[in-house]
């Protein structure tokens, strides 16, 4: 009986303790032994109150390296303990705790952490609204007056700081100003050669190439197991085709003096009809609406598909040759496709001033955080992120011209990424991307060609906080996405106009598109 009582007592106490430990978890321990959640709410209730204070900038009394928490995203899975993070900690005299999440989950993760008052020291700002929300909520550190603590960081962003909408009353977001990659049409050149076909230059020739890729056995194995183009539910899968009609997908355009969505472009339905013809004739991935991203890539990797619309960095560099399963890796070319009116191009990219990197207003050691961030903006820091540690993972063969070689196991890209190489750069990309120099010659040419091919004149760069967009942005986007899917899956071309009209009408009324058009056109006219 006594034993029973004792067991009951012990079990109950253990359960209660577990309960309370579950309630109290979540805070990141700083070097001074307190948790970041212990700060009073008043400390961060306004943006102004996040200015550095003496207590916030003190470093650890015992001289231990301060713990810096970082959150970034990407599409790799680095080991928790890896070469890059270890080396970065050592070089910056910090203890880095780097959380890495999938790109699709990053903004949600930050939202949840922000709602729980648990943001890491250093993190990305992925959208204009996110930067504004965090800044207005007093969650971001005002870096005004701290420019001398991170000279490389501020040198990169100097001319961008005032352009960032979140920086109206301080320096809360450091824009990277990075110009992200534009898309190429990556076409199997070896298949073209096998079929004695020239690179296509217009939409008719492109159709002929996709047709031959699908029905003329381009790989010569005697089996009917190929098709023309990899695609998924993203309109980006047909970037070049929409570009041939002068449509900068995903961007705003100017139509009769009104700034509006690209979906209102007069040739939008013409582009849709062309894509429908490709689909109807079986030249495009049949699972395009439901295929997961990696499976779509897989069709290129295993020699099933002959083309993909994607930034060439994937097909000709990052996936080459390890991802390809054929005996001889494929060769690619990047044809530019002209439309009926001689137009060509791909989605325009603009240097981003609304996204970038930010520091939590609750950070305990701003000097250490800035030290880490600044180091990542040096050539040495960039080399660490992209190539790893000299002598361990790579050696320079001609440093002035960015020529290098990976060493031993690090020649395998999977091994590189698991040890943190080529994984963490998304946290903050500088204007002069070191990454370009790490690409092979063909890819560098492809990147330059894609940037030249952007429909910059047709698109309107709108990195601005528009109220209708803040309130109804996701509803507006959802209607456009649904329209795109409905048009491509319609039973016949005769239905297209009515489907289009119905969705555009919904976009204007239910999605508050008309309201947004008025607001953004006013803004555009005021900035002209």
């Amino acid at each position, binding site marked *: 009986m006594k034993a*029973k009582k004792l067991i009951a007592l012990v079990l109950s106490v253990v359960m209660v303790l577990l309960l309370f430990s579950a309630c109290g978890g979540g805070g990141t321990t700083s070097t001074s032994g307190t948790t970041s959640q212990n700060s009073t709410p008043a400390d961060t209730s306004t943006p102004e109150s996040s200015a550095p204070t003496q207590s916030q900038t003190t470093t650890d009394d015992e001289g231990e390296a301060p713990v810096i928490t970082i959150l970034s995203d990407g599409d790799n899975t680095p080991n928790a303990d890896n070469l890059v993070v270890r080396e970065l900690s050592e070089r910056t005299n910090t203890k880095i705790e780097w959380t890495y999440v999938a790109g699709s989950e990053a903004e949600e993760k930050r939202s949840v952490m922000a709602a729980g008052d648990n943001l890491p020291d250093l993190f990305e700002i992925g959208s204009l609204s996110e930067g504004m929300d965090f800044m207005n909520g007093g969650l971001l550190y005002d870096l005004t007056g701290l420019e001398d603590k991170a000279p490389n960081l501020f040198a990169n962003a100097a001319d961008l700081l005032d352009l960032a909408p979140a920086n109206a009353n301080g320096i809360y977001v450091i824009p990277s100003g990075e110009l992200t990659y534009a898309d190429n049409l990556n076409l199997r050149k070896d298949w073209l050669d096998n079929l004695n076909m020239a690179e296509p230059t217009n939409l008719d020739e492109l159709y002929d190439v996709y047709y031959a890729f699908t029905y003329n056995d381009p790989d010569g194995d005697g089996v009917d197991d190929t098709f023309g183009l990899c695609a998924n539910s993203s309109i980006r899968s047909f970037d070049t085709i929409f570009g041939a009609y002068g449509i900068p997908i995903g961007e705003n355009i100017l139509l009769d003096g009104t700034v509006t969505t690209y979906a209102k472009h007069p040739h939008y339905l013409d582009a849709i009809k062309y894509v429908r013809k490709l689909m109807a004739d079986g030249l495009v991935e049949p699972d395009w609406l439901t295929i997961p991203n990696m499976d779509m890539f897989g069709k290129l990797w295993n020699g099933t598909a002959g083309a993909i619309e994607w930034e060439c960095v994937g097909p000709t560099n990052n996936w080459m040759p390890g991802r390809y399963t054929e005996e001889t890796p494929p060769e690619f070319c990047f044809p530019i496709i002209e439309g009926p009116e001689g137009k060509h191009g791909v989605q325009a990219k603009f240097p981003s001033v609304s996204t970038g990197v930010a520091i939590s207003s609750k950070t305990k050691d701003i000097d250490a955080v800035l030290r880490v961030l600044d180091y990542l903006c040096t050539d040495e820091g960039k080399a660490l992120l992209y190539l790893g540690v000299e002598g361990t993972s790579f050696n320079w063969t001609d440093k002035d011209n960015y020529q290098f070689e990976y060493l031993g196991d690090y020649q395998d890209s999977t091994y590189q990424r698991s040890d943190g190489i080529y994984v963490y750069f998304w946290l903050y990309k500088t204007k002069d991307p070191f990454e370009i120099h790490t690409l092979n010659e063909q890819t560098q040419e492809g990147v330059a060609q894609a940037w030249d091919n952007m429909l910059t004149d047709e698109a309107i760069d709108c990195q601005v906080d528009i109220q209708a967009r803040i309130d109804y942005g996701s509803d507006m986007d959802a209607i456009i996405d649904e329209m795109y899917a409905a048009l491509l899956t319609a039973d016949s071309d005769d239905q297209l106009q009515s489907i289009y009209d119905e969705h555009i009408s919904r976009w204007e009324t239910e999605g508050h598109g008309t309201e947004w058009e008025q607001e953004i056109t006013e803004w555009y006219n005021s900035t002209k």
Partner: protein
Amino acid sequence: MSKMSKSSIKSPEKAPFSSRFLRVMRMDWMLYLMFLPGLLYILIFKYAPIYGVSIAFKDYRIGMSIFEAPFVGWKHFVDLFNRAAFLRALKNNIFISLEKLIFGFPFPIILSLMINEIRGGRTKKLVQTSVILPNFVSWVVVYGLFYAILSPNSGVIRDFANLIGYQGSLPNLLASPSAARPIIIISHVWKGAGMGTIVYLAAITGIDQGLYEAAAIDGAGRWKQMWHITLPCIRTTIIVLLIFRVGEMMYAGFDQVFVFSNDAIVSQIDIIDTYVYKLGLQERKFGLSTAAGLFQSFTGLILVLATNAIAKKVDPESGIM
């Protein structure tokens, strides 16, 4: 007479409640001690967070305390019901829940009746285990299975079509608006029916075997025994589970809809939970998403009370309260 006898019997003087409570506590302190963690769990994780629903009536933004957020009354509810996307999600929610109720609720009952009729002990266990297994498969995996079967390019159906010599194109059912809801319902029934049978089989096990023997002597076959003995005996269990299920009507299955959704079918299957997820987690509109959540809970409560009242009216012994 009865009045006299009542007054003549003196009841012993009752001790005050506090001392009676303490005495009971002292007597069974072990049981109360083991009850304590559960009580704390309910209070801390179920009741304490309820103060958060006040966000539905406040203009709360990230970084501010809930208490200091300004009160805005019904603003978020008005905004929510003015959004066509929310109304569509509400409509889908109701339809999907009703369809799940109509097709999904009777299925475990039928299945448990069928399993109960299996005489071989081993076969019975095998069938029971087989139908319960899908419950432990996550929705992501279930979607993977459906994709592997229905993919018009690489699915099992495609392979079968090739096998019989059909090379033409196949419809992509996972992206077909007309097939979207049936697929949601079928996958729901397939995954959940087995688990539902456990409760019914347990109730069936508790039925007095003498009833079946008496019925058999009176000439009742197995169908009549099932209809006149088994089903009436598990009626109370059916009603209790029906009340629970109706209470969940506003929750049409976030995980399932989230993984099955794509742009072609979102108009048919977008539900309140997926819409709230977009508002709350992706756009940080906490007031709106909390208002939607509160609306769901409140509607669920009303449905439970109404179903309970109807059940009690039909059969006073049934119901959950």
